[in-house]
């Protein structure tokens, strides 16, 4: 699995033209085949779930049957999709704001060492505060039904991991690379552009992947404290309160899809931004 040093150039010509980023049809088929076990497992879980509920005659308010959730989901489709639309806007707006401010704060912190020493301990501490607890206060500030109130909570949740990781990526640079840049008399601006920023990309994307998942969770939980009628969190609390659990589950399905979709988009973005990275080297590239 590791890159074993070879001296024989023939070893390399074997994969010429199959560089990272290029997908041959056979490689694509191999990649798809990798998902087969996961799909089979998911199907089996649903079957077992259905059987358990039927065999033990479990009440709907304890656990709803997958078939029932599915038919309710179809009935309630317009409602839950509308609710999802509100939630996804909050999540995306919060993710965007948190990321932009997180990166800006990281660049400033990495640039000025004084700022870094003063600010970073606070950022690390703030990262462990339950920021969601601020949701009722944000509702008070921005209005209960405003998208901004939820986006604000999400942006604060997203801000800290993005900032902390990006600072690390900008500052934890191989000293050899900095010495090289000095030897070729590169001005500081060029060092940032050609070494620090590319070095920070993997750190930034690993934070963004965490943040993408947190954004959807953050938006839904913030809605639990009150929000628009057509929003996932509010809908889930309302339906669960009325013992309509199949409805609640339908909204959870939408929330799950949103989370996966946003996470998947970040993965695609990552692939596009750094096709050279270790994590994206497939077995046949080695």
């Amino acid at each position: 699995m590791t890159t074993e040093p070879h001296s024989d150039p023939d070893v390399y010509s074997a994969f010429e033209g199959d560089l990272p980023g290029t997908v041959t049809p056979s490689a694509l088929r191999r990649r798809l085949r990798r998902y087969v076990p996961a799909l089979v497992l998911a199907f089996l879980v649903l079957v077992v779930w259905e059987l358990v509920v039927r065999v033990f005659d479990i009440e709907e308010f304890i656990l709803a049957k997958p078939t029932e959730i599915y038919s309710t989901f179809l009935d309630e489709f317009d409602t839950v999709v509308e609710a999802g639309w509100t939630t996804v806007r909050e999540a995306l707006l919060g993710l965007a704001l948190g990321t932009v401010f997180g990166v800006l704060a990281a660049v400033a912190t990495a640039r000025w060492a004084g700022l870094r020493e003063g600010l970073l301990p606070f950022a690390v501490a703030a990262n462990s505060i339950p920021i969601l607890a601020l949701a009722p206060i944000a509702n008070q500030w921005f209005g209960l039904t405003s998208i901004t109130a939820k986006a604000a909570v999400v942006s604060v949740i997203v801000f800290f991991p993005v900032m902390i990781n990006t600072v690390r990526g900008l500052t934890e640079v191989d000293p050899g690379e900095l010495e090289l840049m000095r030897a070729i008399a590169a001005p500081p601006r060029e060092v940032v552009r050609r070494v620090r920023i590319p070095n920070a990309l993997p750190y930034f994307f690993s934070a963004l992947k965490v943040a993408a998942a947190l954004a959807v969770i953050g938006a839904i939980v913030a809605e639990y404290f009150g929000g628009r009628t057509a929003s996932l969190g509010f809908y889930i609390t309302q339906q669960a309160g009325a013992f309509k659990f199949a409805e609640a589950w339908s909204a959870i399905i939408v929330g799950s899809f949103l989370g996966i979709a946003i996470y998947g988009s970040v993965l695609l973005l990552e692939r596009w931004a750094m096709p050279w990275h270790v994590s994206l080297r497939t077995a046949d590239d080695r």
Partner: protein
Amino acid sequence: MSAVDIRGVSKVFGSGPGQVEALKDIDLSIESGQFVSLIGPSGCGKSTLLRLVGDLLPPTGGSLTVAGKTPHEARLSRDYGMVFQQATLLDWRSVRANVELPLEIMGASADERTARAEEMLELVQLGDFGGHYPWQLSGGMQQRVAIARALSFKPSLLLMDEPFGALDEMTREAMQDELLRIWERSKRTVIFVTHSIPEAVFLSQRTVVMSRRPGRITRIVDIDLPYPRDEDTREDRRFYDKVTEVREALREHE
């Protein structure tokens, strides 16, 4: 004019009781086009001396000139190319883009960069690998890319800090042959730091023997073996004699 002139140079790291005298009273003059090796035990300051020449560290005392300028001026006018023990290729750049890096920073046009990178990759026999990423290359190939990068802007001086130290013996000898071939073609001045006695003898015209605590020059051995040097040189009686001479010079000061 000598390519590098070092007069009474000293270097002290730290201060107070913990200070280390890395270099003391170094005098060395290197003619233009010469291949000079610095050899000595770890801690003799050979890499430090190379870094003073390259303005990667400031000297504590004495004076240095590189191509008649201060090391600082020489660095800013890119009079030297540097090769480190690690290839230090940037992971996110293709082999070609790594070779082009110094040219990009110097503001060369895209056409010029491409042409020069191709030329340099041909020179180190990696013409077909421009589109590869560094991790797809073996250690020896990566180090060849680092040499191509150091030569890409045609500096008159090449500073090499144990460039083949991390390679296996076979690759190492192949790299030495290749370096001599490149040097004979371009006749640049080379300062080559190593701790391998045969490597120093095989490559250089002069081998500067250093000892430690404090780091100083104890002997300069002229290696008057004819170029081109090849496999026969490695088995030549006179080659062994020179290896022995350098070894004894190193041992005298242990």
